[in-house]
């Protein structure tokens, strides 16, 4: 999408085509990041259904495949909702390295 469009370039009547926020990445808001461990994942989708940022990625077979760090804000809800056992966590939170 073009930056700083002039008024003659805008869409009719203030409309915007759907889903342009994809171009706005909120990943740099994170102070902590969820780290996904595929081996431990039981594919219950709790992380996916509770993610406020649609940042849990699914593969072509609709299995959980990881975190979309372009959008993940590091809230940690996925970690709280993940039901895996302490020693076999599918999601763990780590400090974001700057």
């Amino acid at each position, binding site marked *: 999408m073009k930056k*700083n469009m002039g008024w003659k370039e*805008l869409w*009719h*009547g*203030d*409309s*915007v*085509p*759907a*889903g342009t926020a994809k171009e706005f990445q909120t990943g740099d808001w994170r102070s902590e990041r969820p780290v996904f461990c595929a081996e431990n994942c039981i594919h219950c989708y709790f992380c996916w259904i509770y993610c406020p940022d649609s940042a849990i990625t699914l593969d072509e077979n609709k299995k959980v495949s990881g975190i979309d760090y372009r959008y993940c804000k590091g809230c940690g809800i996925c970690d709280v909702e993940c039901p895996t056992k302490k020693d076999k966590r599918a999601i763990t939170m780590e400090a974001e390295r700057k």
Partner: protein
Amino acid sequence: MPTLAKTGNEAMAEAMRQINPDVVAAYPITPATEVVMIFSQFVADGLVDTEYVAAESEHSAMSACVGAASAGCRVMTGTSSQGLQLMSEILPIVSALRQPIVLCEVNRALSGPINIHCDHSDTMAVRDFGWIQIFSENAQEAYDSVLQAVLIAEDEKVRLPAMVTTDGFIISHCMEKIETMEDDAAKKYIGEHKVKNSILNLEKPITLGSLDLQDYYFEHKMPVVEAMKQAKDVIVKVGKEFGQKFGREYGLLEEYKLADAEFAVVALGSTCGTTKAVVDELRNNGLKAGLLKVRVFRPFPGEEIAQALSKVKAAVILDRSDTYCNQGGQLYTEIRSAMYEAAKKPLLANYIYGLGGREISLEGIRQIYKQLQECQSSGQVIHFGVRE
């Protein structure tokens, strides 16, 4: 063409029936109630295909209109006074979204004190919201202008909402003889509604009504500015074509015996009818009197008015509303501003009259012309016809 006896409200409702809008969302208010009341009977009798939303307030009525117009529908409504005020929050949203909603407005004084009779304070209060505003002198004009408003509003170059107004009770409730179109002719004249974008288009989803910050709000106001500029030509074009088709031509202004006039009255709405009668009388008595009727208030025909008044000695601008800015009424202040660059300027006076439905009689207009002839300097603002 059928000739019928109709009140202003009936004439507007009849135009609505022939337009057959997809959605009408409205709320009753005196003196505009009949417009939507009659129309809802058309709905009940299956004479139109319209989905009628009997909203619980004018605010919701206009909000539902926005929803329906966003869904690609031809949408109309009607209201007056306090109702227009309650809608007013939504009115600039309609123009920013470029929705060609047409509103039948019956002019009524704003509270307070509460009053149900005619003045123009209601439409004047919303004059800067990006809506086209067309005033009517009588029921015939109301009927004709409602039909034209659909074409003007939906024109590719315009795509702005429009309100057509009548003077409360004076036009809205007075029976007049009007000529209407045959239904088929009206349908053909109005044509199909052209959809620019629709939130019911599932193939091409969009977001409407986004939050604009400092970086885009200004850019989103400019198309309204541009469309309002374009609207002038479109109104003239539509009015001319209407004349060719149906014999009654319309423009931004109507000059009545103004070409050689020395003294002119400038007015909006039904008072123009009263003034025409006085002009005829004064002409018989040898006075070069004339009238400039302002039909379209938004877009404001400033250059055209300046041109039309360039030859008169003195003109009185009649305002049926006040700005309370100590500079005169809305019509006057805008005309005075439009005259600034004019090479030839007549003396200008402002008469604020008829608030809350106070009658303006033939005698009143005679007095105004008389006082105009005695006018020595520009800039007088007179509240006419009020007791001290």
